[in-house]
């Protein structure tokens, strides 16, 4: 903005109007979030009567009540969600990195064909496959049981999230090939190049993949709804729907409290990595 001469006043006022409009939009956009936060600490009486954003009497008891509202505590649901999300992160990072290395660096028969197929699966809606996948996993005895999370995790260990493969391929194309060549001259195999050149240099793409994998899995509902049927196994999103099924008005405060808590990990990720998240969707056209 150094090009704006201080003598010209019109751009200055225009800028101020622009800023005011933006602040108004921010207020509208953030209102639901602030309202959620405020409602989560209102007493039942205030939820009905106090229309303001902030409670007159701070009622943190909603959090305590919500935490133990069902036969199984929310601690368990958070643990389940964390397990699924973190293992998904590991699966996506590992398997997509391997596939991306093959696509970006190795030469093999039908490479272009497979690459086209991979791009094709990018646009494949997940809902289309849920029924047959469910049937397959069920026939393998993986649905239900003591640890029902395998159907949620296995696809991620098999690089089915083409989006991340594509993101990593794009990233690896930016790594100078001279490094590979140097390693090969030193006698490194394809695995050696992967281990000592590509893997350490791909850290930024791995971090982006890890963060988006975590957030998307943490927020995912559809597949978790389909595969989890025992209260003990519920993840946070599935557990939250128990609140809406119980029609009693008294659960509104606790329901909001647990909703706030469920968004907290995503929000913390946002605070820590907001630059990377915004830039990540930029370079690759991620959907949020």
């Amino acid at each position, binding site marked *: *903005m150094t090009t704006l001469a201080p003598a010209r006043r019109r751009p200055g006022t225009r800028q101020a109007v*622009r800023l005011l409009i*933006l602040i108004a*939009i921010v207020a509208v956009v*953030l*209102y639901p*979030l602030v*309202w959620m936060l405020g409602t989560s600490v209102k007493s039942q009486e205030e939820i009905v009567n106090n229309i303001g954003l902030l409670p007159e009497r701070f009622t943190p008891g909603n959090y305590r009540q919500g935490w133990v509202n069902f036969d199984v505590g929310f601690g368990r649901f958070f643990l389940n969600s964390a397990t699924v999300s973190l293992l998904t992160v590991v699966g996506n990072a590992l*398997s997509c990195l*391997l*596939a991306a290395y093959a*696509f970006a660096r190795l030469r*093999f028969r039908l*490479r272009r064909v*497979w690459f086209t197929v991979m791009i094709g699966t990018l*646009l*494949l*809606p997940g*809902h*289309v496959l849920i*029924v*047959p*996948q*469910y*049937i397959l996993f069920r*026939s393998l005895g993986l649905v239900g049981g003591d640890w029902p999370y395998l159907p949620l995790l296995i*696809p991620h260990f*098999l*690089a*089915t999230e083409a989006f991340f*493969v594509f993101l990593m391929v794009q990233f690896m194309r930016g790594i100078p090939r001279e490094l590979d060549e*140097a390693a*090969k*001259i*030193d*006698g490194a*195999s*394809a695995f050696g190049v992967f281990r*000592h*050149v590509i893997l350490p*240099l791909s*850290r930024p793409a791995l971090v982006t993949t890890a963060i988006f994998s975590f957030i998307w899995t943490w927020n995912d*509902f559809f597949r978790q*709804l*389909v595969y989890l049927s025992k209260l003990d196994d519920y993840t946070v*999103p599935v557990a939250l729907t128990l*609140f*809406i099924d119980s029609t009693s008005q008294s659960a509104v405060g606790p329901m909001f409290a647990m*909703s*706030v808590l*469920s968004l907290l990990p995503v*929000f913390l990720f*946002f605070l820590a990595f*907001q630059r990377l*998240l*915004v830039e990540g*969707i*930029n370079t690759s056209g*991620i959907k*949020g």
Partner: protein
Amino acid sequence: MALTTAPDRTRRTGPAGTHPAGRGSGRVRHGEGPAGYVFLSPWLIGLMGITAIPMLLSLWLSFTDYDILTPLSEVRWVGLANYERMFTADPAYWHAVRVTLTFALVAVPLKLAAALGVALLLNRAWRGVGLFRALFYLPSLLGGSVALAIVWVNMFNRDGAFNSFLALFGVEGLPWASDPDWALETLMVLAIWQFGAPMVIFLAGLKQIPTDLYEAASVDGAGTWRKFRAVTLPMLSPVIFFNLVLETIHGFQGFTAAFVLSHGTGGPVDSTLMYTLKLYISGFTDLEMGYASAMAWVFLAAIALITAIFFSTGRFWVHYSDGESS
């Protein structure tokens, strides 16, 4: 940083390795074939087991009366009965199609308009842009969750925050989220609220437009609106196209908010029966998995068709400047 360590490491492994240089490089040239497939194998297994085989299975199931309770071997082939029923005998199916199309046709253009509008407001480098950009993006990260759908439904209840706001102007609001005429609109507003993701992509696109185009337009006496019509829109058309395709496909798949609003029923009076919700109810509540598979295949065909339409009409309005086409 890592740039310097990587070659060092390989150099260290180099002399330690016993392969003569010649044999090593020969191995690289011929041995990459198997190596390629070794690295690709998880993805290939996934492609077969998680995508291709299930797709074929679902195609076959769509011609059967399979429910999860009878074993696969005793499934009855019913020909086109599922498709016939879907198109001629199940009014709820057409209702779901209508709901989904309405949702996408209204919410997607409005969301993109909001995204573009805010991106234009933000498209001047001044301090604080990063903060605004991040704040607008936040709903895109949170908005797909069950938690936010819960908040949304409550916000548009009879005594929710939206009606409190209307009350300031003396307007008495409706119980929007439970009114059959307004429930879908409630979900549309939730979708539009998440305009941040396309906005960020628009912002990146706006940055790519060379400023000399605007200067040339100014010299020719073009005003703000003219510059927007003659420079910004055509130069941005590839990004608009990208966002349009992505958001439309995304919009067709809305599930979570509709499920939360309607307790998984698609109500009130089927007003939020999104296609994916109908598919879920058929497959996992009514256990009519053959029927649900037929629905899934029609869904896939419809999305492929719409994408194809986008790409074939894109020729007429998407403008690729020389730099971008390469």
